[in-house]
């Protein structure tokens, strides 16, 4: 349904990281163009959370709908990282899967997924995990139909667990410094393997290993954004125009790209070792670089830009 009003934000100044999912969507797309599907007044809430005595959200933590981006029609999904860590529950997952399936019929210019998720919602784990598999299949179908699927990652929950796998299925990814992309989160690794394997309280280690700059330098993301809605909008428009096709040649290239990465950096203990081998002059300086300096660094790294995704 259309038209449930929410507070507006200024795309040039407001932090993507701090904004809510609904604020990100409305500020990202052309003004006034967003129409929500299964909006909050329809109250499609989790049937399962009450069993755990947990509060529900009217949209189950994901906003989906259609909008225009620079005049072109797009379908858009945005996860709310502050509700249950943006995790995939049954309704949440069903909304994303439905949106992707709708893309096959509507043939929009692109599908945008604003990730902000810790992965599967444990209280609905089987439904969440299956929905992630369904979403990945649907993304491949959409890409194969020639429609780019663009992931935007810069929220407080990052993009973890199955969210990281969905992100890796997209045509292109834009990430900010605060965006983290990973399968196992720091706490999960520490809990299972000990603090000597991963000290989750070492935030600098978390950013170096999983953060947006590392992902961009090794080619795990295709654009690096300042933490504003305007920067993500600019990146999304650019990435839509240069999305790789989904076919055997692309996946052969991705196979070669990933094998080469493992062979060259498999012995590295820390991200700074990887960056040094990539040819970054002063790896220790990377975390403190502003966007402009970082973009210049990226432009000199051969691994960062490719069509192998």
């Amino acid at each position, binding site marked *: 349904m259309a038209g449930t009003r929410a507070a507006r934000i200024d795309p040039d100044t407001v932090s993507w990281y701090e904004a809510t999912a609904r604020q990100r969507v409305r500020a990202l797309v052309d003004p006034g163009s967003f129409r929500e599907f299964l909006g909050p007044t329809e109250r499609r809430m989790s049937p399962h959370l009450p069993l*755990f005595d947990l509060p529900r959200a009217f949209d189950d933590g994901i906003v989906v709908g259609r909008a225009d981006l620079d005049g072109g029609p797009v379908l858009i999904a945005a996860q709310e990282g502050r509700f249950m860590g943006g995790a995939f529950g*049954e309704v949440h997952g069903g909304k994303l899967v439905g949106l992707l399936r709708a893309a096959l019929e509507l043939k929009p210019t692109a599908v945008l997924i604003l990730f902000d998720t810790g992965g599967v919602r444990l209280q*609905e784990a089987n439904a969440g995990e*299956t929905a992630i598999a369904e979403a990945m299949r649907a993304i491949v179908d959409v890409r194969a139909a020639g429609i780019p699927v663009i992931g935007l990652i810069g929220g407080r929950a990052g993009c973890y667990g199955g969210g990281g*796998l969905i992100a890796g299925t997209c045509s292109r990814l834009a990430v900010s410094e605060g965006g983290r992309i990973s399968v196992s989160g720091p706490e999960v690794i520490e809990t299972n393997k000990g603090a000597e*394997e991963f000290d989750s309280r070492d935030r600098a280690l978390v950013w170096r290993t999983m953060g947006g700059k590392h992902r961009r330098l090794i080619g795990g993301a295709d654009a690096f954004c300042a933490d504003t809605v305007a920067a993500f909008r600019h990146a999304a428009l650019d990435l839509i125009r240069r999305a790789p096709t989904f076919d055997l040649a692309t*996946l052969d290239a*991705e196979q070669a790209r990933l094998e080469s990465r493992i062979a060259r950096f498999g012995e590295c203990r820390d991200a700074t070792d990887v960056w040094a081998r990539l040819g970054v002059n002063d790896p220790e300086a990377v975390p403190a670089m502003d966007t402009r300096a970082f973009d210049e660094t990226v432009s000199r790294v051969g691994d960062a830009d490719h069509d192998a995704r």
Partner: protein
Amino acid sequence: MTLAEILASLFPSGHAVAVQDGLVTGSGPFEGGTMHVVGIDGDTPLGVEGAATLSRAVLDAVRTGDRAPILVAVDSDSQRMSRRDELLGLNECLAHLAKTLLLADRSGHPTIGLIYGHSAAGAFIATALATRVLVALPGAEPSVMDLPSVARVTKLPLDKLQEMAKTTPVFAPGLDNMVATGAVHVVLDPARPLAGQIRDVIDGMQPGDVRDRLGAERGGRPVARAVAAAVIDQARLG
């Protein structure tokens, strides 16, 4: 059933499937042609190297153009949990493996997942759940997270979770619950030859993704299908 027993039942005249470091690759004669086999054995965690080995095998199969079935046999741990794997982009490697299986399916290879042991989380999504039809053998233990870990994260007492697990398939580990969710299509009969059962599964394959329909019919995922359908309906209206 063990992997060796499964392969013997699938390929009674012999096969060329090998296991190295817990990774399964090879092929065997099937229905007058070939069946490719990839997989994970021995509760092995799936890291960046393992994922790349399996995806290479799948791409090699696609490149032959033989459109032969690809069996993905799984008895795995979860994804390998390490700083090194995440540093090297485990999310890309697991997603790539899933994409190769989805490409194979789109390229005319029937893809069949077979879970005969454990599997969890990212390893499960990248392998068995990326096939067109996922079947299981009795005793399989797919899970997202074991109940003691769920208890730790949700801060609910374990005995309460165990009680809830009996009536709420949406969160509890185990094969029956993944069947109810629609993720596992059917449980095979280990007493009968697997070759014929797998052939029947291939013959019965349907277009599209039927998992949310199965989940609704079986009651393990009561609303996902209706939610997805409602989104599509509203999208059509613009």
